[in-house]
């Protein structure tokens, strides 16, 4: 177990190193953006005099690394800077609520697609080359590269425009919270589900096929154990491991999907906030959003890595040896 702990520490260490490099990359990328921050704050009518004063006051004339250092130490203290477009509102005052919304949306999608894909993947794997398998495999293949806004548009046309069961847009009325409007989550969450279903169910199917053909399952069959018992007690435990990895690897797509879905439904999350930031060229807000997405993405990848190690006894007991 000690060696497992040391893997955890080394993973956290390399995570911090990666994040430091990433923060530098994000900061230099935004530097490339055409346009002058002082001009953006004061508008076109600003005099040369006031522009110069503002640049001086905000330290815009300082060398690159001085400004990067100021930004990153601010971030570490929890100060993400002020939004330019929203007239100097501190970013941390708007960001966290939106991040909460996005995470809640992602969680809803997760609760839908993980069990559905695993169950259908197992069915397809067990009934290999039968009708059920063909239908599930084809659906998975079809949805795997389907952009989220395409599945979203189709869902809106059916459930919101034609049947009128669910709202067409996912905005929260002023003065209310997300929890008073849970119905706005359903269509966005389902739109994300499609792509993830493709990946996860196909992975689950193929790992199930491999496991079901292995010797220890044959031995269990020869012992005369009931098929249901073999599938759930013997096969599924091993067949789930690759699926966990694939879920972790596709978290990146999930985050991209969140931006697309939030834009499509007008959902007030971190993705649509980043969209607004890019459209309004709001430098500090872009930096804060991208950095935060990277942190959340990295944390979720690390969690799946560690979970994989924990669930797989071969790694758990000799984590230190390679």
């Amino acid at each position, binding site marked *: 177990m000690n060696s497992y702990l040391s893997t955890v520490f080394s993973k956290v260490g390399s995570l911090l190193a990666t994040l430091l490099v990433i923060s530098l990359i994000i900061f230099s990328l935004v530097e490339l953006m055409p346009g002058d921050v002082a001009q953006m704050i004061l508008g076109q009518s600003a005099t040369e005099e006031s522009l110069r004063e503002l640049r001086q006051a905000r330290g815009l004339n300082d060398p690159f690394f001085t400004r990067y250092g100021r930004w990153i130490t601010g971030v570490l203290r929890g100060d993400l800077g002020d939004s330019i477009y929203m007239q100097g509102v501190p970013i941390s005052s708007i960001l966290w609520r939106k991040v909460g919304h996005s995470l809640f949306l992602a969680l809803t999608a997760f609760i839908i697609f993980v069990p559905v894909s695993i169950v259908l993947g197992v069915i397809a794997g067990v009934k290999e080359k039968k009708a059920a398998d063909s239908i599930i495999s084809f659906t998975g293949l079809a949805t795997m590269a389907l952009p989220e806004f395409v599945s979203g548009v189709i869902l809106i046309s059916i459930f919101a425009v034609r049947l009128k069961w669910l709202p067409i847009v996912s905005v929260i009325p002023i003065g209310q919270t997300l929890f008073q409007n849970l119905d706005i989550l359903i269509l966005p969450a389902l739109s994300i589900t499609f792509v993830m279903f493709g990946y996860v169910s196909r992975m689950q199917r193929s790992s199930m096929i491999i496991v079901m053909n292995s010797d220890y399952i044959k031995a269990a069959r020869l012992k005369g154990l009931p098929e249901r018992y073999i599938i759930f007690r013997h096969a599924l435990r091993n067949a789930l491991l690759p699926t966990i990895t694939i879920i972790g690897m596709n978290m990146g797509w999930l*985050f*991209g999907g969140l931006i697309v879905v939030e834009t499509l439904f007008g959902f007030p999350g971190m993705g649509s906030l980043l969209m607004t930031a890019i*459209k309004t060229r709001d430098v500090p807000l872009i930096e804060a959003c991208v950095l935060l997405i990277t942190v959340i993405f990295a944390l979720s990848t690390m969690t799946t890595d560690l979970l994989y190690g924990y669930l797989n006894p071969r790694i758990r007991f000799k984590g230190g040896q390679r």
Partner: protein
Amino acid sequence: MKYVLYQLKRHPLAIIAILVILGWIFLAFAGPSLLSYTYTEMDSTFQMAPPGVNNHLLGTDALGRDILSRIIVGSRSILTVALFTSILSTILGIILGFSAGYFGKAFDTLFLRSMDILMSIPPLVLSMVVLGILGDSTIASLTLIVSIAFIPATARVSRGVLLSEKSQEYVQAARIRGESHVYIMFAEILPNTVGPIIVEATARFAYSIMMVASLGFLGVGLQPPTPDWGMMVIENRPIIADAPWTVLFPALAIASLVIAISIFSDFISKVLIHER
């Protein structure tokens, strides 16, 4: 060739998929000359007309522009960018992945570390931010940025197939003959790894379409007046309740193309790898 025909007979879905892809390619080339409206023409008497009215087969949008001609002209840009992207990202992936796997040691470690860093920003977020910052995307900038975002995926596949070939005897033989590293990598090893690389490239084509469509949808793709499928969806999103066809048909166009390419790439991987 006989083998391919035999495989086609066993996978009827693949035939449909190939026909759909060829159909789109044909429309992209010949489509605009067959249409009665151009993609910018505004029919002021028939705005938001439902499909079929006044020769607008798929209806018109809020400005009275013909949806069908915009979809067909839009197929040109998405097919071009997606094709170039899958080719460029595959080539860059081969060069980087092969060199890393071949030279190994410090170079390989450096390669893996930088791929980890590139992978730690989700590909769509990365391309969207970079394109958004640069502004006014062109076919070239779109292709380049999406290809870079795809490099971790393609380079890792190339590195993997190179590592499985590296210890083969013919590689040793070439080394003893004194061939150059470049010759060994690209003239000796590459021809033997063509199968998995083609499979990866066709799958990449489907992802490229998904990515380019999503970037267009997010408004950082090709700029108007070039019609773009993703952009058409977000443009007409506010009128979805009154004129669902303005949104639904571009979405179905993307769906048909992406699904056809996915089925095609699945077929290719079955033919080239699994069932040999």
